[in-house]
């Protein structure tokens, strides 16, 4: 670890290189929790964020699921919004200009019902000024395959990524679902198909019921769990993926504080996305950036990249020295 206690006052360098994407710090908003950015503009200076990831966009507008769409659960929440969004045309004409004019890197999260739709979306975004990268949400059902979720099958994941890769020169991020047996298999498939980066996790499939009305709490019955409750699951997933692929990984899931974000960086995520925390504290993202900066200063770390992936999983036996042998020989 690069340490320089002498210059603890100097601002540490928070810049990270995510494959082809250079960010001034590793903290972004997570898709679907930050609207199209503007919703948060009165709470914080959006230009301070590493990037803004916008709500998932489809080819045509989507109305979303019927309510109730939300329910709070212990240390988390379930949502079944149903990917309500304005569609790519209105996104480009109405939503994107605001962020573009601010100069904040915009990452557009996309999803489709078919492999072709993913490709068409990427092609439509290609060349639109102000887009820094595309994030592919593969946690959606493939309508041509009986509703099987793209991201639960390595072959389908790789087809989606290929379709997007062919259609764009923008950096491509594939966002993985944790609702699989082996997330590293899916990660390898995405990387193999040309994804520049992997982000994970999306929400965890879950459900909640009401014993009095005897009804599910969500109209959709199932929902996606997010918030502090998913952080340990997310850490495990990111840890596995970091070791499975040779590209940078973005950690997502239950990040509420700088400490949480640093945990993901420690296990090897090169950047993080903050989701549910934005609902509870709309200024979370900026406070997390400030917290990371304070931590690095206190630790005397001048470059965040020397902290990333510095987890020590080696075994420590602090008492395994000669004095132990003496005690042992006396007992035996």
């Amino acid at each position, binding site marked *: 670890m690069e340490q320089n206690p002498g210059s603890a006052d100097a601002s540490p360098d928070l810049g990270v290189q995510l494959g082809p994407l250079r960010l001034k710090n590793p903290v972004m908003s997570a898709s679907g929790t930050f*609207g199209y950015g503007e919703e948060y503009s009165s709470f914080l200076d959006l230009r301070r964020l590493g990037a803004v990831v916008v709500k998932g966009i489809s080819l045509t507008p989507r109305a979303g699921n019927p309510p109730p769409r939300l329910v709070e659960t212990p240390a988390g929440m379930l949502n079944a919004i149903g990917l309500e969004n304005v569609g790519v045309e209105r996104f480009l004409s109405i939503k994107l200009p605001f962020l573009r004019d601010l100069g904040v890197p915009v990452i557009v999260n996309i999803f489709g019902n078919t492999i072709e739709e993913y490709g068409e979306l990427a092609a439509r975004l290609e060349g639109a000024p102000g887009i820094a990268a595309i994030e592919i949400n593969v946690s959606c059902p493939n309508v041509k395959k009986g509703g099987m979720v793209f991201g639960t099958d390595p072959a389908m994941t790789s087809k989606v990524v290929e379709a997007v890769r062919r259609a764009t020169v923008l950096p491509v991020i594939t966002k993985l679902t944790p609702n699989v047996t082996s997330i590293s298999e899916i990660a390898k498939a995405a990387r193999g198909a040309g994804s520049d980066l992997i982000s994970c996790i999306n929400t965890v499939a879950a459900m909640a019921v009401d014993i009095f009305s005897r009804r599910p709490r969500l109209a959709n019955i199932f929902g996606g769990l997010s918030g502090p409750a998913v952080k340990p699951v997310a850490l495990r997933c990111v840890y596995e993926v970091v070791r499975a692929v040779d590209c940078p990984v973005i950690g997502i899931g239950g990040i509420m504080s700088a400490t949480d974000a640093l945990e993901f960086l420690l296990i090897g995520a090169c950047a993080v996305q903050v989701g549910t925390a934005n609902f509870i504290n709309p200024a979370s993202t900026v406070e997390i950036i400030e917290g990371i900066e304070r931590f690095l200063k206190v630790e005397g770390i001048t470059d965040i990249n020397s902290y990333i992936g510095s987890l020590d999983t080696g075994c420590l036996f602090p008492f395994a020295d000669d004095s132990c042998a003496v005690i042992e020989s006396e007992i035996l």
Partner: protein
Amino acid sequence: MAKIIEQARIISQERISGQILRLRLHSPEISGAARCGQFVMVRLREGTDPLLRRPFSFSRIYPEDGEFEILYRVVGRGTWLMSQLLPGSSVSLVGPLGNGFELPIEKTAALAFIAGGIGIAPLLELIAQVISDRGAKGLENLRLFYGARTAAELLPEDFTRAIGIRVHFATDDGSFGFHGRITQMVEELTAEEDLLLRRPHEVYSCGPLAMQYHVARWAISNDVLAQLSMESLMACGIGACLGCALPAQTPGEPQSERFVHVCEDGPIFSAGSIKWNKILVQQMPPPTWVFN
């Protein structure tokens, strides 16, 4: 005004009756900008239990003192924690949020206010503003129709008398006032000649969903303008999560599937803007794997 995060100091907390309490907060920025019908998201406690903020309407606003009040009913964990807040402590607020009521332009119009249970909260500030707009005269054709399940859930008499306009009470079980649905009472009373309310110019209402539905139906069939304060579960309160959706009516397009969002497009809606049959007769669709 822009929405902000503000740390508010608790000025006072008092139990009005039963499970209904009133909290007064010092929050100069939010109080200075708040309009009646708007709301705040309150973080009742640091940590993860409860995780999300809770929405509450402004029940009274005192901009010159930098203070406002929340009138609330304890129904669960969050509101219980709220009831434990002591003067001098502080809570984090996000606000002011939502669109708010539109005050009547005509200063002499007959107005009906309809409150079900704790739904009386946002109407208190609205009524106070209408009264101060009109002065002492012209209060005769302002009426509050106020109902609850049972007498014990109504606010005490000295409280309702202090509101300053005539109140007609209803209870579902008949334990106080009119026996039956509040909208039945409105229908019967507004049919009476002497009430000056044969046809209120406008209706403002807040209460349980079932009541709001009947108010909306009554308003539409009597061709009366209605402003309804609607509720929904909320995560963000600022239009970012899209969780607070209600099915929307699109004029001229009865088939269109569209949602409004209570925190951004509301909480105040006109009777015709909600697709009521899609709320009350909600069909459970088969589960899909589309979340988010």
